[in-house]
């Protein structure tokens, strides 16, 4: 009998499931009995689970690429004529596949942890917690949302992936980044749980997972920014963030994770905020599960909810289990995590971190409340409500500005207690920076309160970064008598963590300016242009040359095109963007119709990216291949590119902080050397 891919995939899922159960059993028993052999067995099992799921992923990709429509997932979400890259990423374009993919990444991290984590008391418990989380994902994908179900009568072709998703290559990137973020933050969560179980709530669990935490945070940040860019390029309204539940739920764990990576430093330095840190990481992990539940269950209505499915109750159950057992464990071990040390002074590094923490949490709470409010009101009164962007903007802008303010002051404050004199001097510089940039912004024509404040705080923060670097470099240069640039290079090279954080903060300044300018000063117009003529827009000339089609018009009109030849048909307009007598770019805003899902045409904007403002064209209204004019939505968003650029800087800064520093390398060498001797 021939085995079908579906059956093979099913078998590998079952194998992963059985191995995962064994891994938990061996891990927990090994930890309880301190049996090294059982612990080792659990570690090997972790690798085996990863291999089993890797097989499942390989089988699914084979089925997708070989168009095996006997597998239900392929039949429902893939299409013969789709390009290869679309077939590859179809793996995570719908519910079943994305849960499988998430689970696979999780088993990958677990296996890596099992191989690389230093051997200590925390490791067996942390691995077991990771394995419990991965068992949940494997169970969901095996029993509830199985992608390998075999079709009794396979169709000849399928409809293809969701048009909104296959319309942009970003779809290959954004979900992967987001999942890597969520999964990365599972590691510190597991170590925190292990620390509570073994009654070691000191700093071990944090220092050991620092890399994982930063990696997770970096991926989550990159994923959110990439999601914004995807909306900008695909959704056609010229914006990137709409406070839709889908967006909010990725934002909440990011907020708590950001609070976490700041407050762990307080515990490292001052042995304070133990309970805070544990609570923050539990909250981060719980919120990532809660978010998945909210999106996948359809409990809150979202404008763009991708893939409802039967998994809602299971994610809810898992959320309750996680929240109850994790917070329960914190409560049970409260005596150990309670803080002994007290804040020496409010105006100190730890004081500013604590204040920042409160603000991040307040923001997370506001976002959660806004997202759940419709559901709460309906449960109590039976009435339906929608909470719109105005609520979120009103609440979050002041909080953001306060965070922005703290970001400038905090790193300049010393631990414990600030000396009044140096504080005053620094504040003077900071205020001068703020006034200078606000004045500059005012001259440039920015007269509204929030944008002016943002500008002022950007200057404030730039000065702060300058003071930080100057304060580290100048005294050293003076002492050693060497060139300042050389000393700076050495400083950046040796204090990678500190310098990396400065790069990240610089990226945040860039993003803040981009968000402020693009939301406050965007110009959004509707215009009809006859082919052959042109229209003026903000100093540009938009010249509608004629229709744009894919495939070419002659092929479209010849009628010889069969459904197998192309994945989609585009109809749009060729619009030249001129500034003065210079042709800048030919834009092709268009409407794509994917042949597998013709009922859902996708407007596809076309953008001229410039450093100062984008020109964004989207088709609005009816358009045919033989139309003689085109109606466009024309958006000019100032500085919107800065958001993507700032996102890149944040990610690079995180990577820089993580790159092995020379000092650490030397230490490892010395350790190895002494071990060999």
């Amino acid at each position, binding site marked *: 009998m021939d085995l079908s891919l579906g059956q093979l995939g099913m078998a590998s899922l079952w194998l992963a499931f059985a191995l995962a159960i064994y891994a938990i059993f061996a891990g927990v028993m090994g930890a309880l009995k301190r049996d090294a052999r059982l612990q080792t067995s659990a570690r090997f099992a972790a690798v085996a689970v990863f291999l089993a799921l890797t097989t499942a992923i390989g089988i699914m990709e084979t089925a997708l690429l070989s168009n095996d429509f006997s597998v239900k997932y392929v039949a429902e979400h893939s299409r013969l004529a789709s390009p290869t890259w679309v077939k590859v990423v179809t793996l995570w374009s719908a519910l079943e596949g994305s849960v499988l993919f998430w689970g696979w990444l999780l088993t990958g991290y677990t296996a890596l942890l099992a191989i690389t984590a230093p051997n200590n008391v925390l490791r067996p418990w942390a691995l077991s917690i990771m394995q419990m989380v991965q068992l949940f994902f494997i169970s969901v994908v095996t029993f509830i949302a199985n992608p390998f179900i075999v079709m009794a009568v396979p169709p000849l072709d399928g409809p293809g992936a969701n048009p909104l998703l296959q319309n942009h290559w970003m779809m290959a990137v954004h979900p992967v980044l987001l999942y890597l973020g969520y999964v990365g933050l599972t590691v510190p969560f597991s170590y925190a749980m292990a620390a509570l179980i073994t009654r070691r709530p000191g700093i071990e669990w944090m220092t050991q997972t620092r890399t994982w935490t930063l990696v997770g945070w970096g991926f989550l940040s990159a994923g959110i920014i990439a999601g914004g860019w995807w909306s900008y390029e695909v959704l056609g*309204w010229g914006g990137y963030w*709409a406070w*839709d539940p889908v967006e909010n739920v990725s934002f909440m764990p990011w907020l708590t994770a950001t609070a976490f990576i700041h407050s762990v430093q307080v515990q490292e330095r001052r042995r304070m905020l133990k309970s805070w840190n544990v609570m923050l990481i539990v909250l981060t992990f719980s919120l990532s599960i809660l978010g998945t*539940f909210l999106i996948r*269950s*359809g*409990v*809150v*209505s979202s*404008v763009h909810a991708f893939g409802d499915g039967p998994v*809602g*109750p299971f994610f*809810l159950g898992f*959320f*309750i289990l996680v*929240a*109850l057992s994790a*917070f*329960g464990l914190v*409560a*049970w071990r*409260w005596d150990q995590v309670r803080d002994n040390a007290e804040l020496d002074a409010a105006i100190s590094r730890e004081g500013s971190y604590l204040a920042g923490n409160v603000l991040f949490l307040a923001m997370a709470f506001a976002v959660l409340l806004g997202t*759940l409010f*419709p*559901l*709460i*009101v*309906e*449960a109590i009164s*039976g*009435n*339906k*409500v*929608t*909470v*719109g*962007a*105005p609520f979120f903007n009103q609440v979050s802008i002041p909080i953001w500005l306060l965070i922005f303010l703290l970001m400038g002051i905090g790193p300049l404050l010393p631990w414990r207690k600030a000396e009044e004199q140096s504080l005053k001097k620094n504040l003077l510089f900071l205020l001068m920076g703020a006034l200078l940039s606000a004045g500059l912004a005012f001259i440039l024509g920015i007269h509204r309160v929030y944008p002016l404040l943002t500008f002022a705080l950007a200057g404030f923060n730039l000065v702060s970064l300058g003071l930080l670097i100057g304060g580290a470099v100048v005294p050293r240069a003076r002492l050693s008598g060497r060139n300042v640039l050389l000393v700076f290079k050495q400083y950046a090279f040796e204090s990678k963590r500190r310098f990396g954080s400065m790069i990240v903060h610089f990226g945040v300044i860039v993003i803040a300016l981009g968000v402020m300018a693009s939301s406050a000063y965007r110009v*959004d*117009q*509707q215009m009809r242009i006859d082919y052959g003529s042109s229209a003026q827009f903000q100093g540009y000339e938009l010249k509608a040359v004629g229709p744009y089609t894919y495939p070419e018009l002659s092929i479209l009109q010849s009628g010889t095109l069969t459904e197998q030849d192309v994945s989609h048909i585009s109809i749009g307009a060729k619009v030249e963007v001129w500034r003065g007598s210079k042709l800048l770019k030919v834009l092709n805003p268009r409407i794509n119709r994917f042949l597998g899902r013709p009922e859902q045409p996708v407007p596809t904007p076309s953008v001229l990216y410039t450093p100062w403002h984008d020109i964004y064209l989207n088709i*609005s*209204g009816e358009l045919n291949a033989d139309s003689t004019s085109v109606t466009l*939505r024309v958006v000019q968003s100032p500085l919107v590119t800065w958001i993507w650029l700032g996102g890149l800087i944040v990610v690079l800064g995180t990577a820089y902080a993580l790159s092995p520093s020379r000092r650490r390398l030397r230490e490892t060498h010395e350790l190895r050397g002494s071990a060999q001797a």
Partner: protein
Amino acid sequence: MKRFIGIVVIIAALAGLFVFGLIRGRPDRDITSNLLNKPVPNFDLPLHERYWAEYGETLDLASYQGKPRIINFWASWCGPCYQEAPELQAAWQELHDDVLIIGVQTQDKGKKQQGTDFIDQFGLSFPNVIDDDSRTSVAYGLFGVPETFFVKADGTLAYKHVGPVSAAFIKEKIAEVF
């Protein structure tokens, strides 16, 4: 122990809420209003310029007494409103002899231009007024946007709908309630 009880209570409350959400299933959009079968509040609001030629500079709801009216509240920032606008226009093209559809741009203070863009984007030919200070939306007990009120010829509220409507749905409801 006390601390644990607090945690349990919070999680149980959240869980209860979500279980409710799951049992309720897909949000069903029929909700009651205190105004049901009572006269709806009158309004006399400025119209967007493009309707001036046909309806004058303001639109007084009471002056259309004797004709069934459908009042649709929307805002330029509201995603579902973009979804339903072409549906409303389609319904209007078919039904304009029998009912008057009135769009009300609300909860959108100072965003008249965005409202004009919204109207132009969909070529809405039924009259749209501006409720700049959102007083009318308060008078109608609006929870959010979009919401659609079906007002009978005698000026009483027959039915209220929350969330986007479709042309087919409007026709169905008209047959049912008017």
